[in-house]
């Protein structure tokens, strides 16, 4: 089972890396130097880690306001992302976009949007370009459960089906749109994947905190899309630990219960992966120690880069309206 072990270790490494970056953001955010709305996805690392194993560098991806993990999973430059959050000229958008507008076209990460559902049709349009250009790339569209309540989501699914486009719709269902729970937004028992299936996309629903199973499901979908299956929608359940926007925990404010949080935390993706490796007889701690040291050095250096980078000149605000 060496290939499976390799995959599990890669997934675990990616999840550690994403979480370490976001925990460090949360730690430093109160210093007041990251002066933009910042949406962390700590607890949701399973799906992005799986995507990292399944997409090629030349595949496209677009994402949302909660996009750090997707950007990193697609191979986006860590230093450029942090510098962007710090508003520096070395940021991936030269300080014009901030945490909610990340881009690294060198790895096919084509952008994120702060408007819910906004990037979904854009990902479909990238799929149309792939088809008309006649290559075998895939366009990956990240969004959450809230976006499935937008009209543009259904319009986008429909067109992707009509034109059989190479698009993978990836829904991370974390049960909340800001502070509004799923049950006040969608009828009980109705599945996002099932509704999408009725529109005509291939679907799969699974536990997004099981990174290995998620990886297998995504790989299956991506392989099918490259063979011409047309679009897929994959819905993965998961849970964000921290507040909707910002670095803190918010279980005390009353929109969700501490018990619910603890239940999700008990089966969080990193712990699940560590457990499965241990049960298979693998010495996780021995493997993790140097990995975490290596990641810590990378993350610390990236923060050092971001914090020490210069700000853009004030005049930069007034140039570049047009290409």
């Amino acid at each position, binding site marked *: 089972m060496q290939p499976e072990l390799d995959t599990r270790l890669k997934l675990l490494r990616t999840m550690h890396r994403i979480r370490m970056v976001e925990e460090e953001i949360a730690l430093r955010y109160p210093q007041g130097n990251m002066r933009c709305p910042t949406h962390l996805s700590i607890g949701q690392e399973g799906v992005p880690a799986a995507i990292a194993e399944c997409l090629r560098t030349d595949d496209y991806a677009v994402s949302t306001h909660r996009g750090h993990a997707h950007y990193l999973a697609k191979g986006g430059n860590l230093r450029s992302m942090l510098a962007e959050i710090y508003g520096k000229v070395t940021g991936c958008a030269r300080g014009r976009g901030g945490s909610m507008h990340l881009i690294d076209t060198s790895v096919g990460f084509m952008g994120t949007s702060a408007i819910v559902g906004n990037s979904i049709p854009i990902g479909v349009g990238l799929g149309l370009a792939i088809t008309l250009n006649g290559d075998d790339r895939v366009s990956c569209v990240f969004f959450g459960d809230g976006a499935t309540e937008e009209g543009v989501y259904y319009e986008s699914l429909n067109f992707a089906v009509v034109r059989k486009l190479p698009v993978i719709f990836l829904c991370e269902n974390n049960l909340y749109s800001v502070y509004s729970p799923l049950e006040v937004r969608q009828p009980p028992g109705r599945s996002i994947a099932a509704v999408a299936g009725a529109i005509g996309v291939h679907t799969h629903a699974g536990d997004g905190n099981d990174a290995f199973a998620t990886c297998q499901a995504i790989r299956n979908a991506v392989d099918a899309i490259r063979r011409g299956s047309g679009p897929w929608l994959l819905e993965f359940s998961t849970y964000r630990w921290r507040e909707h926007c910002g670095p803190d925990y918010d279980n005390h404010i009353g929109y969700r219960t501490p018990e619910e949080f603890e239940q999700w935390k008990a089966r969080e993706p990193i712990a699940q992966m560590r457990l499965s490796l241990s049960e298979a007889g693998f010495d996780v701690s021995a493997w993790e120690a140097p990995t975490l040291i290596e990641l810590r050095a990378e993350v610390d250096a990236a923060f050092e880069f971001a914090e020490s980078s210069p700000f853009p000149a004030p005049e930069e605000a007034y140039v570049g*309206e047009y290409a």
Partner: protein
Amino acid sequence: MSGREDTISFAQSVNEAIGLAMGQDPSVICYGLGATDPKGIFGTTSGLRERFGDERVFDMPTSENAMTGVAIGAALGGLRPVMTHQRLDFFLLALDQLVNAAAKWHYMFGGQQSVPLTIRLIVGRGWGQGPTHSQNLHAWFAHIPGLKVVMPSTADDAKGLLLESIFDPNPVIFIEHRWLHNSVAAVPHGDHRVPIGKARTMRPGTDVTIVSMSYMTVEAMHAAEFLSQRFNVSVEVIDLRTVRPLDWPAVFGSVGRTGRLLALDSGFTTGSVAGEVIARVSIELFEKLHVSPRRLAMPDMPEPTSPALTRGFYVRAGQIVNAVLRMLDGPTINIDVELPEPTPHDVPGTWFKGPF
């Protein structure tokens, strides 16, 4: 460029421009609701699918918002989409994609990418188009940084500006007034280009400057001719052609010479481009103005449907003539006698039998 010209309609000119662009560049694609139907969007897309195939010319789901996002994504993926809506009003469903994505993508991501996208919007008027088929909302689009807003008034400019729009690296709103589609002009053969952002002096003059756009330029030209013949008044008509970016040197140059400004607008009065023209001229050229600038635009009311309600609702040459005469302290005319609104008033010509 062959140097030859043909007298063709505005709609034919649009069709020719799209065909030329698609022939020159395989990345140009063309779609819209009805783009491949038997009527071909007033003839503007007729024959394109036959020439360039189903992949590049296609009809679409009735999903204005998503299909605008699809165009943005396609543009980011290397294509040059030309999207068409039979009425501007339907496109309002797509404002999120236009304003939050297309207009911002270049600036917001640090100038790394651009969205070469042309969105053709057709504006209706008369024949009961009514509140939701007649809105001239170019001022909204002109308010948004990152957009270019083009609205030609002649067939030759339609061709030249549409070609420039398609090959521009930025999102361009290209507004076609339905009452211009059948107007004809001598249109140069081949790759005729007109730069975006340059106004056109339609008629030189020395007494009053009229700044206008789209269909209002037609009324302005009628008025200018009448004023010349009847009163020996010399009117300069500046057709903006592009309302963002707006050709301020052309406007300032003309008003600097005449000292009198009448700004026309095919949209609602409040918040109009005409209002912006007057504001800037008042700020920059106050000491050169002989009289207060004036403005004629659509009433600040929804456009009604019944022909009984639209009589006198639109700005016609008669009101323009009197606005100019008032600026010159001259006597005004009895519009109903000397320059009445044509009958029927709700069609571009008696040949027009609807339905839209």
